[in-house]
């Protein structure tokens, strides 16, 4: 059985690790520090933690001010508010100024579950990736979360790191995170599955299912959505017959869009998008929601088969 971790637990612990490493690390939150786990940092470094209350716009712009004075600022809240509520502050103040603010947004996607659509960000990758200077990362599990947070710390400039709410299995034999690089999880010659976040696990399951029907599946974990690893896609376009791109996000503007943009411009190939199709989420448990929104292993299997048919 794979190890199960909350990405946000790993995030909180990594913040503590960074906090011990340098006094330049400052953490901001907007009244969700218990949920985002920035509270772990706050407990140990109270003076370097700022809780701005339910005021995401202020948090983002104040983070910019702190960063302009040399701080490495981690700013956290739910993905819905980090991306939606404060987009102008993120665009005009953080990104236009190219400041060292790392937005680590938790509770992304429909697996937020019972809270329902108002709290289920499914457009955040799209609107964050559209901003110049912004780097966008969607780690697939706990360990990759730590690696991504460390990479963001070490790399100057604004980042958006998207984490989930629920516990996720750690991916077996996952190559270490490298910023801007996709990771080949499995070789294959018929079809390529590209996935990020919780959908990486589903893609691996789908690959195993498809193998039973003698379909050779390549699986790519694509944690960095921007800048996108064009080389790994080019190679897959040459060596397989098409792509199924899987994400817990709207099919508009996310990973699938990014992959489609790159492929259609430089390496045209058939592509099927697994994602939320122009709908809002709703309340429910994770399993029911993933099934309703067609984000399961079975949906990926079906899409791969139809692509090859």
């Amino acid at each position: 059985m794979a190890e199960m971790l909350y990405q946000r637990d790993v995030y909180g612990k990594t913040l503590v690790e960074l906090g011990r490493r340098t006094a330049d690390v400052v953490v901001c939150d907007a009244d969700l520090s218990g949920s985002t786990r920035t509270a772990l940092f706050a407990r140990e470094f109270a003076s370097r933690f700022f809780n701005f209350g339910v005021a995401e716009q202020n948090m983002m712009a104040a983070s910019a001010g702190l960063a302009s004075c040399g701080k490495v600022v981690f700013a956290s809240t739910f993905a819905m508010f980090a991306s939606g509520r404060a987009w102008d502050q993120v665009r005009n103040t953080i990104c236009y100024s190219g400041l060292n603010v790392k937005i680590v947004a938790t509770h992304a996607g429909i697996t937020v579950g019972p809270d329902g659509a108002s709290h289920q960000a499914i457009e955040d990758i799209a609107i964050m990736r559209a901003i110049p200077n912004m780097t966008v990362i969607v780690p697939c599990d706990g360990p990759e979360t730590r690696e991504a947070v460390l990479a963001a710390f070490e790399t100057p400039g604004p980042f958006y790191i998207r984490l989930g709410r629920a516990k996720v299995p750690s991916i077996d034999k996952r190559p270490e995170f490298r910023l801007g690089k996709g990771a080949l999880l499995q070789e294959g010659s018929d079809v390529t599955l590209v996935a990020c976040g919780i959908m990486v696990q589903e893609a691996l399951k789908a690959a195993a299912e498809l193998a039973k029907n003698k379909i050779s599946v390549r699986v790519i974990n694509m944690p960095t959505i921007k800048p996108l690893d064009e080389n790994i896609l080019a190679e897959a376009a040459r060596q397989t017959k098409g792509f199924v791109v899987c994400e817990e996000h709207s099919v508009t503007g996310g990973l699938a869009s990014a992959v489609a943009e790159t492929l259609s411009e430089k390496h045209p190939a058939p592509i099927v998008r697994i994602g939320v199709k122009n709908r809002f989420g709703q309340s429910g448990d994770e399993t029911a929601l993933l099934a309703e929104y067609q984000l399961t292993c079975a949906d990926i299997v079906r899409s791969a088969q139809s692509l090859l048919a």
Partner: protein
Amino acid sequence: MLLDSRKIKELEDKAREIRVMIVQMLARAGSGHPGGSLSSTDILTCLYYAVMRHNPKDPSWPDRDRFHLSKGHCCPALYAVLAEQGYFAKDELWKLRKFGCLLQGHPERHTPGIEVCSGSLGQGLSVALGMSLAARLDRKDYRTYCLLGDGEVQEGNIWEAAMAAAHYKSDNLCAILDYNGFQIDGRVTEVMAIEPLAEKWRSFGWYALEIDGHNMAAIHKAFATAKKIKEKPTIIIAKTIKGKGVSFMENVVDFHGRAPSRDEHDLAMKELGES
């Protein structure tokens, strides 16, 4: 320390020169915001010539006082002051808003003397708050100044920042509100009333001062008072005249965001004592 009358005269003369440059650069640019630039000229002149600790030769000096122009559209006034101080060559002023220029239509961080981009209203007080919190963390005694517009305080983000700055007892933060009474669509009182302004800030936990924003001695005194206020941030509500110094621009809403024509430029030069 109070300024003597000679120093006050010097600042007033400097402000007149800054106004001349504002009109000249906007006339050449063919677009931009003269009204608010002229209303905030005396405040900016006082800050950069008599209040702030800064070094134009070393814009990233860690101990410098910070200034953030939240009402970014009034950057012509700031650009003129920064050029006069030597942050960049004065020639740059004449390329304002042109393709490939250093001086963008709204402040951009690559311009020496600009700390953080601005232009989208309502965000600057938060930025300044962040700077003041950084000073506390670094145990530095620099102060952070932030210029706000009156229409700008209609933005909700301003009040989020106001609440937070009081919460954090940021006495190293000083906001100045350029209260000229006009915004793009007309009189502030008619578009969206903001009064009672001083009471609002006081109720948010700020120390609020109300002054004549064109009286150099009063401006300077207000900054000196702000420095002495402990445990709370200060806002200087500076009553100003939009378009101050050019008679046909004064209190004329059209000049919020319209550059002077050639004739208007010439007339303004005459009024400002520039032949």
